[in-house]
């Protein structure tokens, strides 16, 4: 029997997630419809430069699409009694979670790429390298964040996790400089915004579209990468700690 690497096996898990979860109602609502309507609400009655609107659109798309799939996968699997089969196969829990993370990442990547074509039609001047690196690092950070979101509480009720993750997502949305630039926030709010990975995506996209930004682009990249690693490691650790509770 051929020995496949854990990453290769995690791809099989990601593929399974794509086939099962991409068209689930909550994913479509939270990942596609919601950011669309939220952006529409933001747009109406404002006369903002196209490049600024592009940053808002891309930030919300990247954030909402990459966090739509992940939080519910494990609770859903626990509920439909497929989780035990998965973790009793010759893959570690880390590999399972890496697969789930990839499912979130690819969903975010596909939708973000499609939506970014808006920039082409609006003839927005974009630094492609900064844009690409920022989006990829942010997708990694947000999809890792979903692993953390699904770790606690160890429930088999997807709606519980959806509620909690929505609460976190909306909080991050309002503190991350999307609607109000960081430079215009009061000092205490700036400190809070620095705790959000979304802040660094918005800032990096401002660099990419030649709008004044708050941090250096390298700071944005390093911190997005830091959040991606932190969320994944912490998420895996908590999942391992609560694994037993899923069978009690």
């Amino acid at each position: 029997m051929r020995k496949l690497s854990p990453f290769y096996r995690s791809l099989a898990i990601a593929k399974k997630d794509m086939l099962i979860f991409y068209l689930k109602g909550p994913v479509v609502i939270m990942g596609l419809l919601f950011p669309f309507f939220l952006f529409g609400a933001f747009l109406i009655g404002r006369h903002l430069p196209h490049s600024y609107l592009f940053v808002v659109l891309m930030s919300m798309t990247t954030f909402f699409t990459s966090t739509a799939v992940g939080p519910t996968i494990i609770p859903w699997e626990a509920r439909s009694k497929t989780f035990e089969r998965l973790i009793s196969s010759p893959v570690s829990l880390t590999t399972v979670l890496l697969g789930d993370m990839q499912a979130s990442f690819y969903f975010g990547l596909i939708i973000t790429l499609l939506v970014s074509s808006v920039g082409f039609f609006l003839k927005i001047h974009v630094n492609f390298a900064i844009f690409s690196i920022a989006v990829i690092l942010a997708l990694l950070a947000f999809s890792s964040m979903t692993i953390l979101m699904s770790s606690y509480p160890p429930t088999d009720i997807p709606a519980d996790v959806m509620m909690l993750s929505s609460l976190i997502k909306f909080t991050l949305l309002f503190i991350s400089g999307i609607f109000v630039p960081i430079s215009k926030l009061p000092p205490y709010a700036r400190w809070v915004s620095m705790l959000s990975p979304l802040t660094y995506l918005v800032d990096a996209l401002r660099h990419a579209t030649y709008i004044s930004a708050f941090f250096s682009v390298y700071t944005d990249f390093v911190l997005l990468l830091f959040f991606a690693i932190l969320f994944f490691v912490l998420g895996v650790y908590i999942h391992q700690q609560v694994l037993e509770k899923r069978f009690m």
Partner: protein
Amino acid sequence: MPEEVIRVYDLKKYYGDFPAVKGISFSVKKGEVFGFLGPNGAGKTTTIRMLTGILEPSEGRIEVFGMDVTKNKLKIRERVGIVPEMANPYIDLSAMQNLFLMGRLYGMKKREIKERSLSLLETFKLYNKKDQKVRTFSKGMKQRLSLAMALLPDPELLFLDEPTSGLDVMSARLIKDIIISEQQRGKTIFLNTHNMQDANELCNRVAIINHGKIVAIDTPEKIKELGAKYNVVEVSFSPFKVNEDFFSGKVKISGNKLNIHTEDVHRTIEEIVEFARREKIKIVTLNVKKPSLEDIFMEIVKENA
């Protein structure tokens, strides 16, 4: 002497303060079907989850293929097929997609997965449904697919947790036939069940677990012998008459019959004949009821409650 595939030493598991498994030890030999019997909540599923490395033991040690399970769970799982209790295939995937997923998780090549999957779908009478979503399958079909998924990597050891529970007769028969044929191919099978008939039919040895402790472990036949004290001699007289003190065994009256519980069937029959002569009554029926494995199981469980 056959090699021991599973060795369990003084295994304990606590959920908080609750002891689910209270220090069990046993071994399973290569090529045998080992039945793990017990009522619901006895600790069977917790034990199988520890044996497969899903749960960590609180105390004790488990060796599978001579390797410590806690340190080598992935290496061991490469050689093991598992059908967890109530573990469903993915209902939003087709039977073939479920098998492909399992094959990939076991590191199998695409071609190998396809060939083996088609053969298993044929064996499990699911070939015509291979591209249908599992959502449309009956419980029996899902369970057959579940076993096919476990057999896909051709494992040396199978852990089956209640594989025939709640199934239709056809599916249960098919699964039992496959267990027998897998054993004939040299596979070792650890079978969790509360179905005495399955254990009697399939297992070389059985362990009876109750309240987290093993209360008996032997071949089904030996366990039945252990249950000699549970023999019942059923007799009816005409006219009906009874004198409970006359018999050495414990007498229970059921309608117009006496059920005499005895360890010594020969002596009890002699007593019945003597009683009929003395009372000048006729013996109408006389049956010796040997206890089934189920009767013995119930008695052992009651004694250890």
